[in-house]
């Protein structure tokens, strides 16, 4: 309370002579900065410092010896140049981009579908469905991936057993990770499964804000459900969609656990996404400079993607004002 009281006192105009022009300037100009300073310092500490370290590390030759002695060697942009010639890196980058697009697309599709369903079903079913979603969301990711791993296990997996018994073919000893496309399909299932709850609940929350009258008016004018969805629901939900698509992109581009845990911490190179590549270079091969450079590229790509989101948000805020 003391701080707030103090602030109010300063903002209040003070006609007294001893206040002087200096005080006035301090109050008007600097006070806002003083107020955001605590949050700014915290953000600088927990985000800015590591980010700065990462940028610095990406310009260093930093191996194990350098790590133990806390002393690297400056190599400029050499780490980034390595990527230009490394065919492995090009593969990693394109796989990561494709993976992100597919996962964001599928997550959004299913999440929107479930959100629309939530709006239409009876109260009891809605509660059951929401509870199910929250349970999925509440499951810690590593145990969840372990469960999926068991289900897709080569020898003892229930998926192979089920597919065989359903008569879809012989899946005894079928290896889901032999072919990377199948393997990534399994990983996609797990990622989308884990992403749906948050997205669906967010979109559902948005749906409850769509004015009933608007929908009814459109229906009276003869709009089909699909048209109502495309012309009314989607435009109104645009800010929500923007947020969840941006967040999904950030999450799906940074997918790590699903690959790492599912493939017993030794994924073959076919399964390297940007995050896995960066981890492998840093913590397995002890080339911390190279690993950091890969992480910097990841961040750069995400900045470009989220820039669109930030711009749109600013625009929408301005429209609202």
């Amino acid at each position, binding site marked *: 309370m003391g701080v707030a009281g103090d602030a109010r006192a300063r903002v209040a105009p003070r006609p007294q002579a001893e206040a002087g022009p200096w005080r006035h300037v301090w109050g008007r100009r600097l006070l806002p900065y003083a107020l955001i300073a605590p949050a700014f310092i915290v953000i600088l500490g927990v985000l800015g410092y590591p980010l700065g370290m990462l940028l610095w590390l990406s310009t260093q030759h930093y*191996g*194990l*010896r350098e*790590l*133990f*002695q*806390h002393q690297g060697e400056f190599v400029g942009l050499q780490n980034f140049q390595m990527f230009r010639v490394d065919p492995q890196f090009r593969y990693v980058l394109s796989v990561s981009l494709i993976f992100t697009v597919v996962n964001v697309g599928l997550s959004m599709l299913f999440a929107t579908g479930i959100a629309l369903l939530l709006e239409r079903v009876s109260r009891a079913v809605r509660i059951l469905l929401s509870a199910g979603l929250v349970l999925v969301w509440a499951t810690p990711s590593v145990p969840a991936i372990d469960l999926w791993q068991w289900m897709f296990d*080569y*020898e003892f997996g229930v998926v192979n057993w089920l597919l065989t018994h359903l008569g879809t073919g012989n899946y*005894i*000893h079928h*290896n889901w*990770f*032999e072919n990377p496309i199948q393997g990534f399909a399994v990983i996609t299932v797990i990622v989308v499964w884990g992403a749906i709850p948050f997205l669906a609940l967010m979109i559902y929350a948005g749906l409850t804000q769509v004015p009933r009258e608007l929908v009814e008016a459109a229906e009276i004018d003869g709009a089909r459900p699909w048209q109502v969805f495309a012309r009314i629901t989607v435009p109104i939900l645009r800010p929500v969609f923007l947020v969840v698509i941006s967040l999904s992109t950030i999450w799906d581009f940074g997918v790590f656990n699903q690959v790492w845990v599912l493939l*017993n*911490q*030794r994924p*073959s*190179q076919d399964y390297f996404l940007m995050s896995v590549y960066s981890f*492998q270079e840093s*913590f*397995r*091969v*002890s080339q911390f400079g190279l690993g950091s450079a890969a992480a910097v590229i990841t961040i750069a790509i995400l900045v470009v993607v989220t820039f669109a989101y930030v711009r749109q948000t600013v625009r929408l805020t301005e429209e609202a004002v």
Partner: protein
Amino acid sequence: MNPRKLLFTVAAAVALVATACGGSPTTSTGNETGTLTVWLMNGSAPQSVVDGVNADFKAKHPNVTVNVEIQQWSDVTTKLDTAFAGSAPPDIMELGNTLVAKYAAAGALQDISSKKGSFENSGTWLQSLTDSCTYQKKLYCVPYYAGSRAIIYRTDLFAAAGVQPPTSMDQLMSVGQTLMTKNGSDPNFSALYFPGKYWYAAAPFVWDFGGDIATQSGTKWTGAINNSQSQQGLTELQNLVSKLSRADKTGDEAKQDQAFAQGHIAMIIANGWEVGVITDPKAGDPTLKDKLGAFPIPSHNAGQTAPVFLGGSDLGISAKSQHQALAEEWLGLLAGSKFQSQMVTVGGVIPNTTSLVSLSTGLPAIFAAAAKNSRFTPNSPNWANVESANVLQDMLVSIFTGKSSIPAATSAASDKITTILNS
């Protein structure tokens, strides 16, 4: 009690204590305080051995706390990197013998060359382990124990199929095929269960035909896994795997003992200690105890055995440790005759000294014998990076799944090995 008598008693007691302490080699007085942190790997020393070492150590240094923490193999390098980068790494750590060069070169381990003589049996340490502890002619660790692989087989399944342990690679194939035919009704049966990423079981085939992983001339390494002898060995192995194994072609060996205990497997290539996992009441099947035999991996030259990788662990002292003398003493106990004998009899491993190898009996003796013809991976600080980059594992997976031909897969792997070892 009169004063004189009291004085005499005290003097006697002091003398007694002094004599008791006389045996201790270093300057340690027993008054030290502090905490000694020891990292041992999962499955290395039986708990009774660790307790024994701690008890003997405690008797001399009652005020020192020893924390023995058990680490998992799967993520140990990351943990070690982090620990060594910090200011308080563990004082003593068990290191896989292929990892030592990397940490020694990076300056993480204390040079103990001058203390070598003070360790028991240092004159008879296993050569291959001593080599793994030596980097640029200096000693950075103490050999701990060794392990080598042989083939563990089900004697009952062999008897039912009417076959004997093979003594050549050709026989291994024919014995395996007989077993496959005999158990043809079981769709899960593997005569020789071989998971695709099991590099250390593949190496003997490469070495047996005269191939190698990499060769060194001067300071330069050249990948050799693509030379014709290496390819010959891998071709032989691929043939065996395609006909005798239903193991996951992309899987690793981590669960092979549990799989073996399920009863659909006649042979696995395994370390001696894995017998314990197979017959473990919880993870395995104790009723298999009397149905297990072992024989060395046979060579393609009939009657000989294939060279095996001599795995094992060493014990190092962190260069940053504040308790060098205490660490040496604790380490000396675990690496000394008393507890090494227990490691052999209780743990079933190959001890760090040739003078105790004869203690092995039963199955462990077969593994110890197989170790006589043993090889080691390229002793370069960068070898650990070849391992962590999964170069050889990925190569095997490509070969077994038919994703690439043996010449293509081996030459890609060889290029990578050359690059990493020389980087």
